[in-house]
């Protein structure tokens, strides 16, 4: 009897608790920034927002980069999409938009509050068929970062052309210095090199039409620049550390930050990790992969991309979700974001000397000088074709693949996907 009473009391309490929670409007929010620095910002932002909006309950969850790719797919398949969710730009986000899973933000972002908040370069990769499907959160680009001490010891300076870059690599090799630290165990690392080279060797209009499978079937992925780019990537193999395919990116980065190699291809959002390392003591600089003379692509594109937040098409709380996104991308919050996380916010004017290190500011300035962005290849191509490139990124270096064959396979996969669209 006592047990029964306790159970009844308990269930009554639970029921009233549930009723109490229902007075608030819940907005579910899933992102991929579980790192302590990032969580510090997001938790503070959520708390500040909830304080000024007592009727809103933001239910936030964060999972890491790789698992996020699985989780969002599972949620999509089981129709449990969070109201606000993270996405990379390019094809990763476009496929949600293509299947009608995203809320159209075009008109909302025309509102006066949002006016001039983001650059075109940050907005465009989050568009599909002219409709804005995402709010950019940060922008990111990839640079060749170098150790100034090693460069001075070997009498080197930043290269102006790709040919100079290769000479510089040869010099380092001859002097017994490992030129480039590279960890390609998870082969997304390779797609950054390959994507950058594709952009340099293939005209932009041809390339983007191929990536989005809008080219004529007979021309799809037939431009010879792709094969040349893969050959160039294969040649770079002589300049990487040993065992590239067995080394995680973070391990390679550790060895570069410890001053063991001359250079590494590093993301802007990784710049904040340099302070306190041997690299910091040696001094460091960066340059974009230099232009290839005579190649047909756009030589002034930077590899990188914005990433951002999407609102689910199934949401019942679109206005609340939008309002929250408006809040976390407001100039004040964006400055806070840069200061706390070391990331480069997509909000114009948020990365300044006050909020970021001089290298991050310089990195963002260099990005503004670029003609545009070559998005991360594995998030810009369709998944099936990208997977062939991902595998080839390892196989080309271990001598288990030939550039012509790789592109033939990409073409075959792309044709199959094109038929289904």
């Amino acid at each position, binding site marked *: 009897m006592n047990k029964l009473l306790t159970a009844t009391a308990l269930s009554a309490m639970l029921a009233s608790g549930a009723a109490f929670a229902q007075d608030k409007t819940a907005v579910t929010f899933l992102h991929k920034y579980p790192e302590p620095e990032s969580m510090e910002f997001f938790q503070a932002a959520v708390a500040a927002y909830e304080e000024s909006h007592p009727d809103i309950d933001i239910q936030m969850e964060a999972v890491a980069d790789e698992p996020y790719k699985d989780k969002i797919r599972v949620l999509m398949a089981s129709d449990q999409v969070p109201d606000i969710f993270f996405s990379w730009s390019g094809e990763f986000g476009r496929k949600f938009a293509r299947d009608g899973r995203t809320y159209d933000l075009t008109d909302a972002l025309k509102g006066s509050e949002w006016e001039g908040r983001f650059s075109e370069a940050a907005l465009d990769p989050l568009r599909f068929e002219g409709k804005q499907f995402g709010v950019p959160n940060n922008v990111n680009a990839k640079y060749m970062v170098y150790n100034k001490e090693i460069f001075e010891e070997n009498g080197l300076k930043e290269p102006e052309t790709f040919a100079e870059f290769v000479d510089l690599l040869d010099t380092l090799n001859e002097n017994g210095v490992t030129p480039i630290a590279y960890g390609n165990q998870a082969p997304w690392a390779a797609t950054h090199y390959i994507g950058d080279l594709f952009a340099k060797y293939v005209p932009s209009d041809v390339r983007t039409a191929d990536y989005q499978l809008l080219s004529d079937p007979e021309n799809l992925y037939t431009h010879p620049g792709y094969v040349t780019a893969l050959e160039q990537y294969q040649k770079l193999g002589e300049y990487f550390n040993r*065992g590239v395919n*067995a080394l995680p990116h973070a391990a390679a980065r550790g060895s570069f930050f410890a001053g063991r190699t001359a250079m590494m291809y590093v993301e802007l959002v990784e710049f904040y990790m340099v302070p306190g390392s041997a690299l910091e003591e040696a001094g460091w600089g960066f340059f974009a992969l230099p232009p290839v003379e005579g190649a047909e692509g756009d030589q002034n594109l930077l590899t990188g991309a914005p990433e951002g937040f999407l609102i689910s098409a199934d949401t019942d709380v679109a206005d609340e979700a939008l309002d929250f996104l408006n809040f976390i991308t407001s100039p004040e919050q964006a400055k806070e974001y840069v200061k706390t996380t070391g990331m480069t916010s997509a909000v114009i004017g948020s990365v300044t000397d006050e909020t970021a290190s001089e290298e991050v500011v310089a990195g963002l300035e260099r990005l503004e000088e670029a003609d545009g962005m070559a998005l991360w290849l594995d998030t810009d191509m369709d998944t099936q074709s990208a997977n062939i490139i991902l595998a080839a990124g390892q196989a080309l270096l271990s001598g288990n693949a030939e550039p012509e064959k790789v592109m033939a396979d990409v073409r075959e996969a792309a044709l199959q996907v094109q038929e289904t669209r």
Partner: protein
Amino acid sequence: MSRRPTATFRQSLTGWLWVAPTLLFLVLFVYGPALANIRYSLFSFSAMSQSKTFVGLANYSQLFGDPLFITALTNNIAYAVISVIFQVAFALTLAAVLEAKIFPSFAANSFRTMLFLPSILPVVVVGLIWQLLLAPTMGLIDQALWEMGLGEWSRAWLGDPDTAIFTVIMVSQWQWTGYIMALFMVAIRAIPRDLYEAMELEGASGARIFFNLTVPGARETILIVTIITILGSLKVFDIVWVMTAGGPNHSSEVLGTLMYRAAFRDDTIGYSSSIATVIFFIALTIGVVQIKLQKDH
């Protein structure tokens, strides 16, 4: 004639009631999903798509024509063969040696504990530790080889398509051989001691005692462990995913990683379901063989 069944029905009703909850659980969470999976494998759809397209057996014809499927199946078979050699033959030998009172009991206990320890570590931790140990240039193993003057043996074990899967398999053996050995020690202790003493009095050699007494005595355990090992090798996923994710260039892909990749990387859920169905039927066949073998004894 017509009354007896009712009596047995009444008797069996109680039995049915006892097993009903478990049965219901199995139908809801095991048989139901397995059947749903077979149905899914006849469609083409992604996690994003709102509708499914019926494609019949197209997923299966694509799978059987896919060279990656052959790679994965071969790797699973290699996994099973090597695991049986290590975790059955080698572990049984270890168990027999440790139980044969060759070593003083303190040493035997230390060895047993040391061999058993890896199996209590989480697979992900084991994978990451070995990844660091095996890392080229900065890893302990590579450095040890250079120090010992065996520099020419040094290689990127996980980064080389020829060695990646075998490296992962060996790490798996390192983790599980001690666990299986402990099971065998229990089995050997169940064999009456006086049989051993009798054989020793007759002056039988250690090898003869092993093959004529230990092996037949532990036959049941050997059979079960072999089946568990083969099934485990067929379903393996975690250690491969952590250490190589099926790379480099798909050389260490197994059926589990292939299935995962199809669902969560390529967005082809239907195709992934067809791989799951194939794994299911292979496992079912092995299970049936096991039941038959046990009946024969």
